[in-house]
């Protein structure tokens, strides 16, 4: 009798349970499908395409190794390879040295102005790469560069002091641009290290150099290599610096060559693809080893006790040179670039600062920009794209994260891997892959804003994943389980418990993706068409047209807007206790 009762109760329960699992699996299934589609399809298509001849009206595409044969047989490619390697390595070393010195000064010494160091972390966010390059052209071009002109005037010579149109100039600009990244990575390395490891070396009788060499540095090796690798990868991926500085003087690297191959007539898609695949291979290897190294870091962790504030080294009189180094750096990376843009934005024609030019200050460039026919559509597109991609990414990655962090689903690590895959795509390569895919799989979005949305979502998916993972890890399993025990379905639990708890991370990630989307250039450059320009593309076009003063005006306004957004992001971050990832 009682057995009957139990089985009928179980039967009555079954449909409800099924419905519950249903909703869960649908959401999971859709999210997985979206991520897999976004991350894998373009990559697969790019690989596929690189093995075909160009399709023309008269001739269908044929399978060929010709693209690779052409790419790898020419001396040109060898030169390209060495140029890229030289540029990326130089950038990585320079950025690393500058970033590490500053991080060490900041974390371990009593250099004055330490509080200003913090602003460093936001600089790369508020000055987009293209504006940084343009500013440094205005500063360091051999003909019109202010630095050259001023020094020549002072020293009465015709000597060119800095020439950004050279491999060293490219390394200088790129290294400066990426040094805050090195600064952040090395700062977190120094912070993660138990200070008593260094203190115990001091107590053992080691002096500052013995401690730094035998303990601090030896312990940081994995982090140092990882930082160098990631800097190397971004050096490989950077597009605007080698294109604006290298191409005019014939120094080609992979990214600028891909751009050139597409923009010549007829477009050499096959060649561009084979370059892109090669570049992708290099960055993938870099990212792979970088993640291996980061994983290894845990091997180097011993039992750690309470974090005692580390003793800062008293630099004595050396404090002042150290502060000077810092101020000089701040000048190079923020003050000079911004000032030069500001200056030229108040001129009718670009001219070097002088008393005479001071008399010609004008608001004309701003007027021109505001009446520019592209401005309103570009602004609208930028806002739409950044808002849309940020929202979509944060929601989709919330589900992905939940699966990866909270479930025991087999193969979930693969999902994490797939969603992180776009990380290895250089922006230009991703643009190329998406362009090729939707040119061939015609679903009517090529040339519309939708293709750019897809590109943005794909490109910034890993960021959303990272923000959500950090906050998801902080949500204790029992919070969810107690919702379940209270009788909530999976959907209700996710909506009423998980998402609200994720809110700080969601918000911080959302703003971050907004910011990087507004600055995005290297992916958009291959995907935009008239009517779907974004702000960064407009800057690019102004540069191509030689409208430097209008570019400066737009640039100044963009920097100010990004500055406000970044401040907002940091306020949110502080309020909810989220660290910038």
């Amino acid at each position, binding site marked *: 009798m009682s057995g009957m009762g139990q089985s009928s109760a179980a039967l009555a329960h079954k449909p409800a349970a099924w419905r519950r699992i249903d909703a869960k699996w649908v959401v999971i299934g859709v999210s997985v499908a979206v991520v897999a589609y976004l991350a894998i399809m373009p990559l697969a298509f790019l690989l596929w395409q690189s093995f075909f001849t160009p399709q023309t009206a008269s001739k269908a595409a044929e399978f060929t190794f010709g693209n690779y044969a052409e790419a790898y047989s020419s001396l040109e490619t060898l030169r390209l390879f060495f140029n890229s390697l030289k540029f990326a390595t130089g950038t990585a070393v320079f950025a690393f040295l500058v970033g590490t010195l500053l991080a060490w000064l900041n974390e371990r010494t009593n250099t004055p102005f330490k509080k200003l160091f913090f602003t460093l972390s936001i600089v790369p966010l508020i000055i987009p790469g293209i504006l940084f390059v343009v500013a440094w052209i205005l500063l360091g071009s051999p003909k019109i560069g202010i630095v050259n002109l001023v020094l020549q005037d002072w020293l009465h010579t015709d000597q060119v002091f800095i020439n950004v149109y050279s491999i060293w100039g490219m390394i200088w600009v790129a290294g400066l641009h990426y040094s805050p990244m090195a600064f952040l990575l090395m700062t977190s390395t120094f912070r993660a290290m138990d200070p008593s490891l260094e203190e115990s070396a001091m*107590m053992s*009788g080691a002096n500052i150099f013995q401690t730094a060499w035998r303990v601090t540095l030896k312990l940081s090796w994995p982090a140092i290599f990882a930082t160098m690798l990631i800097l190397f990868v971004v050096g490989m991926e950077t597009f605007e610096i080698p294109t604006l500085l290298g191409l005019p003087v014939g120094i080609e690297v992979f990214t600028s060559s891909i751009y050139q191959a597409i923009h010549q007539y007829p477009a050499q898609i096959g060649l561009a693809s084979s370059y892109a695949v090669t570049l992708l291979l290099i960055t993938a290897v870099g990212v792979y080893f970088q993640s291996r190294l980061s994983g290894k870091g845990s091997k180097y962790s011993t039992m750690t006790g309470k974090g005692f504030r580390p003793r800062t080294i008293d630099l004595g009189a050396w404090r002042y040179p150290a502060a000077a180094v810092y101020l000089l750096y701040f000048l190079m990376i923020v003050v000079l670039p911004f000032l030069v843009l500001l200056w030229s934005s108040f001129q009718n024609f670009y001219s070097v600062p002088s008393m005479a030019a001071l008399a010609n200050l004008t608001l004309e460039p701003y007027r021109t920009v505001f009446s520019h026919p592209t401005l309103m559509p570009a602004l609208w597109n930028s806002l739409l794209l950044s808002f849309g991609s940020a929202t979509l990414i944060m929601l989709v990655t919330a589900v992905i994260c939940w699966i990866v962090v909270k479930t025991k689903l087999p193969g979930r690590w693969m999902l994490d891997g797939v969603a992180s895959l776009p990380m290895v795509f250089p922006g230009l390569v991703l643009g190329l892959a998406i362009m090729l895919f939707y040119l061939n799989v015609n679903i009517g979005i090529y040339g519309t804003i939708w293709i750019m949305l897809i590109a943005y979502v794909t490109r910034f998916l890993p960021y959303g994943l990272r923000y959500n993972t950090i906050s998801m890890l902080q949500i204790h399993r029992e919070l969810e389980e107690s919702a379940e025990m209270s009788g909530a379905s999976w959907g209700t639990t996710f909506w009423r418990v998980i998402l609200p708890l994720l809110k700080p991370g969601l918000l911080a990630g959302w703003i971050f993706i907004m910011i990087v989307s507004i600055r995005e250039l290297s992916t958009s450059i291959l995907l935009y068409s008239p009517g779907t320009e974004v702000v960064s593309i407009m800057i690019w076009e102004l540069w191509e047209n030689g409208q430097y003063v209008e570019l400066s005006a737009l640039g100044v306004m963009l920097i100010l807007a990004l500055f406000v957004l970044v401040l907002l992001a940091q306020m949110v971050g502080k309020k909810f206790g989220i660290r910038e990832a």
Partner: protein
Amino acid sequence: MLSVKGLYTEYPNERGEIVRAAQDVSFEVPEGKLFTLLGPSGCGKTTTLRSIAGLEKPRAGEITVDGRVVYSSAKRTFVVPNKRGFGMVFQSYAIWPHMTVFQNAAFPLEVGKTSTLSRQKIKDRVMRVLATVGLDQVADREATKLSGGQQQRLALARALTMEPRLLLLDEPLSNLDAKLRERMRFELKRMQRELQLTTVYVTHDQSEALALSHEIAVMNEGRIMQIGTPRDIYERPQNRFVADFVGTTNFVDATVIAAENQADLYRVQTSIGPLTCVSVEPLKVGESVVISLRPEDVVVAAARPNTRNAFEAVVDAKLFLGEFIEFQVKLGDTLLLARVHPSFNPPTGTIVHVGMEPEKCVAIPNG
């Protein structure tokens, strides 16, 4: 041997506020003795230890070791930590994960004044010390492969290889599990007594302090509340903080009625009735004091105990804790905690007799 005089330290916290860590801290540690700084977290004990080490620069005061001034605000002397030659064991052990056990222990000999030693001499010395702590068998192992207890012993070995004048231990046992901690207590004590090494030990664990020390300084809010031998500290607390922090105690408010004719004994009036108590400091009639009474000194029995302080009480509640029973007995409106051998086990509500020796009723100044 070690002498700390008038030490003041302060540092800014994360919010930039000035935190006063040590306030007028002074003490002396004789040659070969183990001296403990005991106190709750944030009492300034670690800052004091780090000031002795040289990892922290005090604001004022003087620290001398063996007559050598290592810090003095008056003489503007500050010897950097790597020139002080003290051994230190950190709470986190700070074992370098990129070195083997041997390399960790040999490091001090390779970098300091002794760096001129030959490889063989270094090896001999390191192996001798590793043998002392029982790690000679694992000398070539990676340091991260050691267990918690082994890491602790390695940290100690590293501090000992340099044959320091002074050994500084910062909560060395707090990261170990309870069983291991008790065993390491014995080992640490045996080693310190054998080597006759002057040692400053920092802990928040009162039983550790009582078990290991020749002398203890109890600290609170940056100040030393009492310095004394473990027995002094436990049996003759000089103030309410020390009585409360070290061990468990009953506090009973009292007023002095008269001095007894025996030295140090006084008659006081309390909420449980008149009582004879002991006080090191002379007390005046009418002075209000607090009587501290350890639970193990409260005798609970079926018959009236033969002592001057004897009362009737009711068993209010009791806890069986294995080694003893904890009784809460009620004398009038006052509850007293008592520890009694488990063989005496009257039911709750029973009227029992309670007695306490006057020697064990310690009067401490009120406030």
